[in-house]
């Protein structure tokens, strides 16, 4: 019963596993499609089937806000944080990827730490970062008191925030993925192009900007997409490290227990659409970069 030889009748195991695969795909997509359909319920509709009419009612409800939660503000915060995480992930991962190609003192230790961060239960990382910034707060307050800056002291809230603690928390989750992708890229990278550039008198920077970067560009775009989407959905690492405000997934998690109308499905549909737009744009960009390279090669 050889499973790989071509032009033989498919063995029984093929049909069984094909069935498992189809059921698995239905299992993955089914519930999401249900959410998508139910978010277009009519105004009379509830959280389950049957559909009572077809409307954008619950999207309008969403735009008006859900209870005390300002969805628009949360959405903007998540977008801003996602973009910041994306930018940092791309720059830091590419730099680190380049560093790992050379002799890097302590490279193995760094790699071990990165893998540890990847498999560390997120709640622990989150708690640690939350603690760190609370202790920083205490220190800042002590220093302000010591300097006698009473007004600044009273105005000081916390150093926990979107672009301090939350950004750091997200990076401990996105950077390991970025580095692993860079490893995969540079493992397949042919250094002959770089050597050719050097032989032709290119400076290291010219070699990087005109040879290496264009060659790895599609993967770098992929790292950016990873960074954004991982941050866009992140809850566990943000939960203790965000401070006073919440990102969209955190608000969404809170809403699951309070909102009992299909507007929560509308919100689900909306965030899914954002993810897919990001993915679509990324794939288009990768395709354009690839096409530019192919055209360059043809010339």
């Amino acid at each position: 019963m050889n499973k790989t030889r071509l032009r033989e009748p498919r063995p029984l195991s093929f049909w069984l596993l094909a069935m498992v695969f189809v059921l698995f795909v239905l299992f993955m997509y089914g519930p999401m499609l249900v959410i998508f359909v139910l978010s277009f319920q009519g105004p009379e509709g509830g959280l389950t089937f049957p559909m009572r009419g077809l409307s954008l009612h619950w999207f309008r409800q969403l735009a008006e806000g859900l209870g005390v939660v300002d969805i628009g503000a949360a959405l903007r915060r998540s977008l801003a944080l996602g973009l910041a995480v994306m930018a940092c992930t791309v720059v830091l991962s590419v730099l680190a990827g380049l560093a790992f190609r050379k002799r890097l003192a302590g490279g193995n230790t760094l790699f071990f730490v990165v893998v540890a961060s990847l498999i560390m239960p997120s709640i622990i990382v989150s708690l640690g970062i939350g603690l760190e910034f609370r202790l920083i707060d205490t220190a800042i307050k002590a220093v302000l008191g010591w300097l006698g800056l009473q007004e600044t002291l009273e105005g000081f809230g916390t150093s926990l925030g979107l672009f301090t603690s939350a950004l750091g928390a997200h990076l401990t989750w996105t950077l390991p993925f970025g580095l692993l992708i860079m490893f995969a890229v540079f493992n397949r990278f042919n250094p002959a192009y770089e050597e050719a550039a050097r032989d032709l008198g290119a400076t290291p920077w010219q070699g990087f900007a005109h040879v290496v970067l264009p060659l790895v560009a599609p993967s770098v775009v992929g790292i950016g997409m990873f960074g954004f989407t991982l941050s866009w959905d992140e809850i566990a690492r943000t939960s203790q490290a965000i401070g006073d405000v919440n990102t969209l997934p955190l608000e969404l998690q809170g809403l699951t227990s309070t909102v009992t109308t299909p507007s929560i499905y509308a919100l689900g549909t909306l965030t899914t659409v954002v993810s897919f737009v990001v993915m679509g744009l990324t794939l288009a960009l990768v395709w354009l970069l690839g096409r530019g390279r192919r055209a360059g090669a043809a010339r």
Partner: protein
Amino acid sequence: MSPPSTSHTAAVAAAPGRGIAAWWQAAPFTAVFVLFFLVPLGLILMVSFWDFNEYELLPGFTFKNYLSVFEGCGNTADLCTTLRTYLSTLKFSLLVWGITLVLGFAVAYFLAFHVRSPGMQTLLFVLCTIPFWTSNVIRMISWVPLLGRNGLVNQTLIDLHLIQTSIEWLLFSDFSVVLAFVHLYTMFMIVPIFNSMMRIDRSLLEAASDSGASGWQTLWNVIVPLSRTGIIIGSIFVITIVMGDFVTIGVMGGQQIASVGKIIQVQTSYLQFPLAAANAVILLAVVLMIIYGLTRLVDIRKEL
């Protein structure tokens, strides 16, 4: 998973000053992990020995937090809260691990060995990864209209006259928690196992069959051992995620099921940071022991 081979860059590295340049390139990346990973972990360990009151953390050195975590655990007749929580969390980990391993292996096997054209392989693989890009909370609540008391499953079963009244245990139960975990994290098994399987030299399979091995023998003696790395990586992912989880268990358990992660989260919301830190240290120790055991287990079998 290992750092890339550096053989082809040896010449580059030999140039004077390159080591320093590499160090500068890696510095910002390293700084992030020092500031947001290593220092926080150190602080958790430190604060787990601190005292606290309603208003502030009190630096010091006390085992009070650890003692309070294990309060009443000397009593063997009635399990203490901590042990029961850990057992329940472990139960979820084992169940989810077993299911995702079998399911993930089957899917990866189908993609790697049964799908013949590389184009089709890529297409089906991407098909599996697309749901991964949707928010986890959305994927969780998408089970509500299916499993709820008046959900699709109950309605269908009633319409078919298979049951008289709605099944209550479908939603906000152990069942729905495990289902959601499998739904969310089977991808973490498929990707590494598929990756290992694609590296298996196909001529080994032919050799096995030429030597008279049955399909099962080839599977068990050739494919499973050669997919070992992928299986371990996937297992470590799934187990660490489930051990530390509080979001899925919260949402899908109707906020009724305890988990270690949830205890930590609740304690921080009451600003009991030293207690939460002690719990985090214990959780970390348990997770590290499981990971260590997992790598041991497989190494031992390889040696047999």
